[in-house]
């Protein structure tokens, strides 16, 4: 399960970012922010090849000693980043993909809310609880 889940706007500011445990929050912010480099690299690399039938899942952005950072980008250039603990080896690519899909669906629901102003930080409870379900339960 994830240790950090972030939704990042097209303009690269965080729409939503949550991490466990809390005390490492800053580190995750740095990690997710830095991962945008790779996201942008991947988007531009793929963009040249075939922009229309692009795979939304960007795969492993970069591994660090402690974490693996996965990326996903919607067609509207909203980025999802999931950070997984490296020691958590039970997670396969497919599971990460399905997490992203779930995240995307929930994000779409948020966007469909007429009271949500696109570009605002996400405060939806439904989204929050969905993210919580995907996160490592802080013991």
């Amino acid at each position: 399960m994830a240790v950090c889940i972030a939704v990042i706007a097209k303009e690269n500011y965080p729409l939503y970012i949550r991490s466990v445990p809390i005390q490492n929050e800053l580190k995750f912010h740095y990690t997710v922010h830095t991962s945008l480099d790779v996201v942008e690299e991947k988007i531009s690399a793929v963009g040249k090849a075939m922009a229309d039938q692009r795979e939304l899942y960007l795969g492993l952005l970069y591994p660090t000693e402690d974490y693996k950072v996965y990326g996903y980008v919607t067609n509207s250039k909203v980025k999802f980043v999931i950070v997984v603990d490296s020691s958590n080896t039970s997670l396969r690519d497919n599971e990460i993909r399905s997490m992203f899909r779930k995240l995307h669906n929930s994000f779409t629901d948020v966007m469909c809310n007429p009271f949500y102003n696109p570009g605002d930080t996400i405060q939806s409870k439904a989204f929050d609880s969905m993210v919580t379900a995907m996160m490592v339960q802080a013991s």
Partner: protein
Amino acid sequence: GSLSLSSFLPSLPPSSFLISPVSPPGAGDQALFTSLYTPLAQQLPREPMEWRRSYGRAPKMIHLEANFVQFKEELLPKEGNKALLTFPFLHIYWTDCCDTEVYKASVRDNMMRWQGKLRLHGSADWVIVVVETSDAKKKNKTNILPRSSLVDKIHQIKICVVLSDPLQDSSRSQESWSAFLLKLRTLLLMSFTQNLGRFEDDMRTLREKRNQPGWSFCDYFMVQEELAFVFEMLQQFEEALLQYDELDALFTQYVLNFGAGDGVNWLGSFCSPVKSWTGLLLRRPIDMEKRDGIQRGQASLLELRSYLFCRQCTLLIFLQRPWEVTQRALELLHNCVQELCLLEVSMLEGALDCWVFLSCLEVLHRIEGCCDQAQLEANVSHTVGLWAYATDKLKSLGYMCGLVSEKGPLSLELNRTVDLLAGLGDEKAETVHSLQSPYKKLKEALSSVEAFERHYLELSHAAVEMYRAIGRMRSAQLIGKSLAEFYMRKGDPELAESFLQNALRSYVSEGWSLPVTHTRKQMAECQKLLGKTENYLQTSALLAGDANLTDEERIHFCQEILTFANQSTDSKGKQPKVALSMSSFAQLKQLQFRPATATVHSGTALQVELCLLSLMPVAVPLEQLAASVHLNLEQGGTNGKTRGPQSRPYPGTVLFPLANSSGMPPSAACPSLELEEIQDRSPLDPHTLNSTGMVCKNTHLVMRRHDSSPSPDTPNLVSPVPVVMDDGAKVLMSGDVTLLPGNNSIVFSSQELGTYTLRQLCATVGQVQFVLPHISPLVQYEVYSQEPQLTVEPLTDQLLAGLPQRAKVRLQTGHYTVKKGDALQLTNIDSMPVLTSSSCPATILNSTAEHVGESVLFIQSSEKVTCISLPPTPPYHTLEFQLEVLCVIPSDPVWPENQRLTNGEIRHRNIFCHCLCHCLCPQMSIDCPWSIYSTPISLTFYIPFKAKHSLLSAGNRKYIQVCLQNVSDVNFHLMDQRLTEKHQESSLELQSLNTKAQQLVCSKQSVYCVWDVRWKENMPLCLQCVFSASFSSASEEVSSFKPYHYEFQLERVTTLYSVRAEIMPAAGEQNCHSGSLCGLEMSITRLAEPEDNEDDGETEEVCSTKLMYEVADSSNSWVVYGRSSGLVSMPADANANHRVQVELMPLFAGHLPFPDIKVFKYLPPSANSTSQPDTDGCVENDTLSLLDRPLDDQGDTASIRSRGSVHSVGSGEQQSRGLPMPRLEPFNPGQVFNHSQGCQVLVLPSTDDHVLEINAT
């Protein structure tokens, strides 16, 4: 001689297939093989063979190379031997025996023995080669073993190949060689495939046993690696790599299972404490040292991983995939760290860092060794991760070993360094002589603070450069930040600052609040050390208002500011105050004007209430809060119209868009759209819409590029931008304010005259000033001064003359205070007296039109002035009261031309401006107490009636008709209409034929009155009459009638001639018929003596008057035949009669009106004219009369002119040139009475309508 076998040895160059010839004991064929060895070894690998493989794997073309070894029984594989490298794949028995005897004597037995041994070891792959040479045949001609027989014999056993004359250069020899080689290759490959398959099966079997106790990974490793070696030698690197990858995956899985609690015994050896961390060693293709360790089951986890990676690296480089090496290296290093942790391998703290650092550099060196510079630069993205990782590890080593602190390492840290270095062991032989080996680098870096710094900076800068080069700016900034931390540790804040600034700018621009806060804290520390007071205070202000920090931290930073502010005050420093941006300190949320119009007159105070949101965690006492304002000159001293920001949700309130809090990126806080609906209406019809749409009013803000350099709106966030203070501007001040956390309300008030724009806001705390450099949107307020104004306006839409009307007098006092005893003096005018009695009520309103008081005015009228005493009224109030006035309708007839004449010259004080619309504008002047000049006041009154008169005749009798039209919107009662002669001289009697009762004249309607005029003596030439009536408004309950007069004049009233006409049908007809001629007889009779003065200049013809008649038809129903006009001479005596006959033809049937008969006075040309026409009788000259008629009634003569026009025009022109023209003069209405006016005659339709004449003119 005999045969051979193949063996693979890993130490040999890869992909060589070795078969060694072995000669059986006692046989002498060693020499034979030796002679053939060289061509054989050369030619065997020359051509590729297709290698078909089991399990559906794709066939491959491979070159076979063999190593030939002499046959020894010991070399034959024993049961259970798993070695594939030393496996003899093919056994060859070489013989050149062609002698039957020899064969029988020794070769056969020898062969049988060899075969027996092979059979014993289960080896079925063998071949017998018989070499035939012509020399041997020649030598031994007698005892030649028939080739066929030998071959046959051997065939019985197994396989035999004949090689003929191998050393001769003949076609036969070549053929035999190639056949032999093909055979050999086929057999060899067959054997190889078979044995490989068997080997793989064995290996799989072994792997399946992996869960049985006693299974050892190391043993299995060696077996599968054997396979990898074989593939490597066959140059099947892909296959070889696959074997290692399988081993890798297998091992990884075991480690993971171990982590999941499923431990296996053999893993125990890998869990032992790590004593050596020499890092990867990639310079050798095979690290035999580590391989031995694995074989012995004594390798540590790191050694196994190192060896495995080393082999993978070698193969990947053979495959020319160096970038996969770097990628796998990074994965491996991360993985190892995890595995060590998972297996709970105890390791000296920092040892793993050493291993990772060395490994990173080793991989990079290896890659640099096999790629050129251009390739390396193009693939920085693959290597930069390793650089960054190495940098990171070196950094943590440095921190661990005390190499980063200013004071140098402590003894504990020194000991740790020594331990770490010990684990590195001695440098490997390969790199001993290179200057830049990873080993040397690490050793040097750990040796001293300076060396560490050098190496660390070198690595960091390299990594930063690489990240920059590939556009990974964020990664570069992160390394930059750790560099900054390093510099800060080293006590070198100058160098740290720029890195922090870079990072901070990026985080701010992308809106990452936590990193912003963290970096800003580091920045504050750095700025404090640098002594950049202003920047430090600004950063502190930002941090004090940062919600991401704890209250303690926020209070600390807030206290820093307050401490500085107070210190400087104590020291009475002369240094200028420090100006900081206010946005970090407090936000202006709302501004409210009281009164809401933001406009006050001088003398009253305008209040401005600011709502400031203080971001500080504690209450901050402000010495003062000042808002500087700018006087708008161009609007200075205006008249007090309401202005200020338009379209506010609440009047008088300006809401300020929330400025960027540090958390929101500028892009997110981009201005919201200001949309406005536009409608384009048709200019003709306001209810028709041409188009409608939405307009964005702030496109310039919305469409602004977001990716441009940091916008000037967010200066405060990264580094303070110098705040410019308006100097010498007017300020609104509020002293000793304490800003509490959260919303605060501060009230300013202003009294100074002028229109002001709020520019800046400045909060002063001791030596610190927080300045809001711009207040946007623009806010203006106005304090104005106004002159007193007096206006008089009608109470109703229109003021009507002749009736008492009300007018409202409004006095706006402006800056003037109306004192007791002040009075307005109205100059009386006769035409418009003021009717209001001695007192009238007045109301007093304040500047916002609220009712504040009532009062009574006293009005005194004297002959010339009316004096209205005013009640005391404060300034900027309005005094209103009503005056009743009456405008007298002038009785003179209204001739606009005349009136204008008198306007300028005579009437000065009683001016009537009389317009066509019947209105009067009497002008009065009022003297006001505040001015020496009179105020002219003009009111417009509309005359409610319009009168017309006309004279009606019946023979000699005369009637006067007056038409009175009500032009106003009001209904009137009318009574007492009278007509009198103005001078009452003549003996006229005007007898009214009208009703005596009161009449209602509705709006826009008319009343007609008629009088019968009788006279006893001669009728006067000129009648001057006055019409008078009384009227009152019908809506008024108590009708007070007001007089209305109308004067007019009539001239030449008496009837002089009467004209009588008669239409007679043609002779013999009863009625007229259309289309046939009939006669018109007219008779003109003189009724009265011509007046003496009637025909001036006709003295010579007193006896008779010449008249001209004309028969004209205006309705086009008659055609005049012959002449239509003529002159008649009327004798002067009364009752003189003249008859004229004219021929007519009616054009239509029916009751046709008589044609018009007109009579004019004919004034012949001047008396001395020679060509005087005959005065006697009629002058029958159509054309003359027509051309010279001064009256322009051509339409009436249209039908006349149509006849004989050619002639008449020609003669007319001639006459008009040479002769003075006769003149025609019309009679006044009433002078000629037409008896047959309005008569009709019956015209029957033509009997023969076939000859109807169509007459077109």
